[in-house]
């Protein structure tokens, strides 16, 4: 789970300055400033509709940043979006999996589109690691939500991103799955990866070293750990 490439550089992975986003005339995000360093986890709290998913979509490059500045691992994302996409991994509410493909085929497809050189043996090993070894040849359409989530998160073990973006990562996971995910994320952070996640679940996030932020009325504010449960 070493971020790609292995980082000894202390400069921030994410630098977002004065980011704005609007849907039509509705200003969703305004003046967003966020800096995330290697090994750091930023957790975004906020009420439904506060703009957490929009901010993650901007950071993932799914939405185009029209106003403001966004540097990812030193790359100007507005200028070089493809380069930026190679350095991040976004797992949102959707798992981005194809139901007609098996876990192995889904991971083959993922690695091809990211130009990650892998062998089938490595992919099978990753599938085993996320606990899906018994379902390796079954089409994903028969998987439960939790199994799909595990497979989606298996991409983290292949992509070695500098930045991991997660939207409500604990949803659909059972207690064992939450423990497994937190262990995986702790290793990722320990190896210098940066994590930004949106969550409504401070109890589960508490297992990770993190910096909490609150999104309210389109603006992002740092909050203390004591304020987390009120910020959801």
């Amino acid at each position, binding site marked *: 789970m070493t971020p790609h490439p292995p980082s000894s550089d202390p400069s921030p992975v994410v630098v977002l300055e004065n980011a704005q986003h609007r849907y039509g005339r509705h200003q969703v995000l305004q003046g967003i400033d966020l800096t995330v360093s290697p090994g750091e986890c930023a957790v975004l709290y906020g009420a439904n509709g506060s703009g957490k998913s929009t901010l993650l*979509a901007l950071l*993932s*490059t*799914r*939405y*185009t940043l029209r106003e403001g500045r966004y540097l990812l691992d030193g790359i100007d994302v507005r200028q070089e979006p*493809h*380069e930026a*996409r*190679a350095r991040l991994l*976004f797992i*949102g*509410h*959707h*798992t*981005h*999996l*194809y*139901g*007609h*493909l098996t876990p192995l*085929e889904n991971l*083959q*497809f993922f690695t*091809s*589109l*990211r*130009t990650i050189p892998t062998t089938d043996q490595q992919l099978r090993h990753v599938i085993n690691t996320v606990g899906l070894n018994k379902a390796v040849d079954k*089409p994903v*359409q028969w998987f439960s939500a939790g199994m*799909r989530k595990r497979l989606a998160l298996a991409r983290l073990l292949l992509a070695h991103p500098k930045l991991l973006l997660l939207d409500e990562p604990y949803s659909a996971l059972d207690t064992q799955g939450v423990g497994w995910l937190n262990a995986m994320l702790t290793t990722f952070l320990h190896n210098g990866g940066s994590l930004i996640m949106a969550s409504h679940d401070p109890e589960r996030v508490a297992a990770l070293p993190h910096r909490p932020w609150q999104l309210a009325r389109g603006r992002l504010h740092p909050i203390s750990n004591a304020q987390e449960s009120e910020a959801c």
Partner: protein
Amino acid sequence: MLIQAIYRIAWKDVVGDLRRRATLSSMLFFAISVLVVFQAAFEPDRQEALRLLPGLLWATTLFTTLVGLGRVFQAEEEDGAFEGLLLASVPRGVIFFGKWLGNLLLTLLVELLILPLILVLFNVDAWKHVPAILAILALGTLGLTGLGTLLAAMTRGARSRETLLALLLLPLTAPMLIAGVQAIAGILQADGIVAPWIKLLTIFDLVYLALAPWAFGWLVEE
């Protein structure tokens, strides 16, 4: 590496379709239905059937292509897969070409199956022209599916996307279809003119396949 990505996207679509037997079977069923209706409606003699063949072929190709295009992004509608595709670290044009290639292969397969069927059903003696006819069909299908894939992406989220797709595709491909009909008619006639129509088809292909990836990239930006 980019070629590998194009191949993987196309592979995913073709394998998916063969597993679900969705698009290919719909296209084939639709093509056979159209041909049977034409045969029952016109009941042409051999000479007349030879004259009608180019138009019949292209009309059937167009209708079956429309059926295929209506489903070209179906797999991407599951579980945010389209978003996942757009987050890949490859240029948008690569995604377009992958989707186009998958659709092209399925359409070519249908054409390969309907041409012998049409010759048998209409009792047309044009077997010696089959390779040339297939080559012209394939040439026209490059541009037809290129433009069609772009329009399918454009109408992806629309409520009545298949109607919208037909409304957009039919007028835009009309000149290309005329060139395709004339090229096949030229082959079937002893002294027919073929070369200018093939040049025209090639120009359409080049224009559509040059502009569509760029337009696709612009279209999917949010």
